[in-house]
């Protein structure tokens, strides 16, 4: 009996040992799951791209998390501080410096040094806005992923009805055209969103106004010190300029309740022909063209795009865009890096995520633009990085919010352009002084 049990025990033990020995091998083959926090609205398209990644990398599964751009910063920074952030994070061009400086991203220099040549279309050196990917310590904290800029889209039929042959090239000319369209057609001219929120569109338009003629809010002097580039008078001038569209009535007061450049109200205004001009990134322009085609099959599109007006510096807008980074708490760095490398390849990612342009020169040069979007490559050629805004001490969100609040006060008649311009200048100058102390 004891002997039989012993034999049975031996067999059972051998089986158990074999199972235990086999376990690590089977575990090693089970896929590693990484999390990817994605903030754009194109979730189904991105999921399709991630499915392709999983197919090409069977040992990696990607759990896509969603959050709005408005909430992503505070959510991510909290998680990064407590070691619970997703492996791969989707951030904007303005964030790597402050995130990297706060140790909320993993430096990528070792990975780029190893794999840079295989990245994107022509390798790491072909990516642009790489300066914005650096932290204050000079290390690279993110990989530029997509890029865009704002361009003016206009309704050619309304321009024709108003007797305007060319898109204006000066700021005064743009206002004249806007006024003329309203007077002759009864439609809105430049219907820019004039509402207040933390990330209002007016921030971009005021910067374009400044940059076309001189420096922006923050500039760097010859000694490398950050200084105020805009005077109170220039701030007042810009606020008065944009306010005149509202007081003269060619930007309807209903736009005081619209804050963002891609708001449905603005898209509908362009689609219905109630608004003659809008300024927007290419993703929104593509949305307008797509919806127009759906609603008017076979009909000619009444839209064109053109660069914003300019001054002595020409027409200058900013490179906007998205980057991808790895959180400092990621335990799956290699898998996260594999995903980033995959997503920066135009094929297949941008076949699905096709409203966006990869932030690589080769990809931009080879991108085919619809005829109506011809203004975008022209505007991109004259776009600039945030420069001293991104490298300087005052966080862009602070200035963005302050500019929007000041403009909102002027647009509703609470403050004069002069008072708001002076206060806004003081607010940013005070913050600059505090942070440089």
């Amino acid at each position, binding site marked *: 009996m004891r002997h039989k049990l012993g034999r049975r025990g031996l067999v059972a033990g051998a089986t158990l040992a074999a199972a235990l020995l086999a376990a690590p091998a089977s575990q090693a083959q089970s896929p590693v799951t990484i999390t990817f926090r994605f903030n754009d609205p194109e979730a189904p398209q991105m999921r399709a791209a991630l499915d392709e990644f999983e197919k090409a990398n069977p040992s990696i599964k990607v759990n896509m998390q969603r959050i709005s751009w408005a909430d992503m*910063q*505070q959510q991510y*920074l*909290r998680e*990064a*501080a407590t070691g619970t952030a997703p492996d791969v994070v989707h951030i904007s061009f303005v964030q790597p410096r*402050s*995130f990297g*400086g*706060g*140790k*909320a991203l993993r430096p990528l220099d070792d990975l780029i040094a190893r794999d840079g040549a295989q990245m994107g279309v022509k390798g790491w050196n072909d990516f642009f806005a790489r300066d914005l990917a650096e932290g204050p310590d000079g290390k690279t904290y993110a990989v530029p992923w997509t890029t865009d800029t704002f361009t003016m889209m206009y309704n050619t039929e309304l321009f024709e009805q108003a007797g305007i042959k060319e898109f204006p090239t000066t700021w005064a000319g743009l206002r004249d055209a806007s006024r003329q369209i309203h007077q002759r057609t009864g439609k809105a001219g430049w219907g820019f969103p004039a*509402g*207040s*929120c*933390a990330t209002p569109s007016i921030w971009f338009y005021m910067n374009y106004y400044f940059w076309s003629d001189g420096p922006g809010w923050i500039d760097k002097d010859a000694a490398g010190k950050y200084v105020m580039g805009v005077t109170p008078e220039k701030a007042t001038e810009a606020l008065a300029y944009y306010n005149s569209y509202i007081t003269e009535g060619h930007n309807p*007061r*209903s736009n*005081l*309740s619209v*804050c963002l450049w891609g708001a449905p*109200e603005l898209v509908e205004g362009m689609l219905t022909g109630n608004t003659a001009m809008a300024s927007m990134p290419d993703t929104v322009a593509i949305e307008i063209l797509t919806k127009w085609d759906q609603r008017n099959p076979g009909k000619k599109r009444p839209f064109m795009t053109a660069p914003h007006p300019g001054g002595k510096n020409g027409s200058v807008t900013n490179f906007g865009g998205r980057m991808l980074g790895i959180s400092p708490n990621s335990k799956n760095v290699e898998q996260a890096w594999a995903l980033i490398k995959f997503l920066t390849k135009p094929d297949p990612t941008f076949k699905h995520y096709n409203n966006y342009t990869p932030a690589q020169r080769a990809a931009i040069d080879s991108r085919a633009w619809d005829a109506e979007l011809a203004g975008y490559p022209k505007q991109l050629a004259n776009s600039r990085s945030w420069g001293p805004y991104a490298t300087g001490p005052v*966080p862009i*969100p*602070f200035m963005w*919010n302050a500019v*929007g*609040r*000041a*403009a*909102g*006060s*002027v*647009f*509703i*008649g*609470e*403050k004069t352009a002069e008072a*708001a311009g002076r*206060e806004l200048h003081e607010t940013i100058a005070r913050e600059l002084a505090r942070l440089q102390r």
Partner: protein
Amino acid sequence: MHANAKGFVAFALVPAFFFLGAFYVYPFVFNLDISATDLDIFQLRDGGRWIGLENYVELLTSPGFRRVMFNTVIWLTVVGVTVRIVLGLALAFLLDSRTIRAWRLSTLTRILLIIPWATPPVVAIVVWRWILDPRVGAANQLLMWLGLIDQPIPFLADANWVWPSIIVIITWNTLPLVTLTFMASLQSLPGELVEAAEIDGASRMQLLRYIYLPHLKPAIIVMAMMSTFWTFNNFIYVWLTTGAGPGTFTNVMATEIYIKGFIDGRLGYSAAAGVVMAMIMTAFGMIYLRYVAARALVEEEDR
């Protein structure tokens, strides 16, 4: 008390003290500590630098502070709470009236009254934003159809309309609780008291002044105090309705704390604003309880 009983009481109080300490005292002390630093949201891993009372000095001397306090105290709290109490009283009298009872509408009106209360604030705000939208909103469509306006009004972006609009939204969502509280108090009023006064020839105004309002006084006092605390601290109604705009026109203490902490990234400054806010409410609560509530409730007991 026997030593064993004392021990049991102490033991029974441990969970209460633990939760008070963990969820009230510790966060408050932690917040107080942060308020004396320059901690910003990008440096969470490193922590902030000790700067003493600088945040408090900056807050109390900042040009926008007076405006924020005016919005919080006058518009949000005084106007908001007063409208709620007055309308709540009026509605409670109406729904408790003999006419409503005679028409057998009591149950229906109470169900209708509960609907706004059962609506989560976020949902209520989204619905109201649609109603007040200048392009497609029902309010503008109705006013234009009636011929009262010829241009839509951007209710939430117009200086003349934005505060009244916020007050309407808050009132719609929170009025039922106030009304139901007053109705419950009204229903506890002995009927013979009213009948006796009526037999003595009391007019409706005299009934209101000498019978109903004194009876409702404790409920009004408690509801006014609770509404003041809820409203003064409230973030969601203003933030989701206007984002503290247009400009800073509807910025209140709670939205200022959020903007400074999570948009400007200045968590230390934001914590200081939170401490100031808590101190204001503590002072209000103490004064209110000492001079208003206590006196009124003692009078009520003496009657």
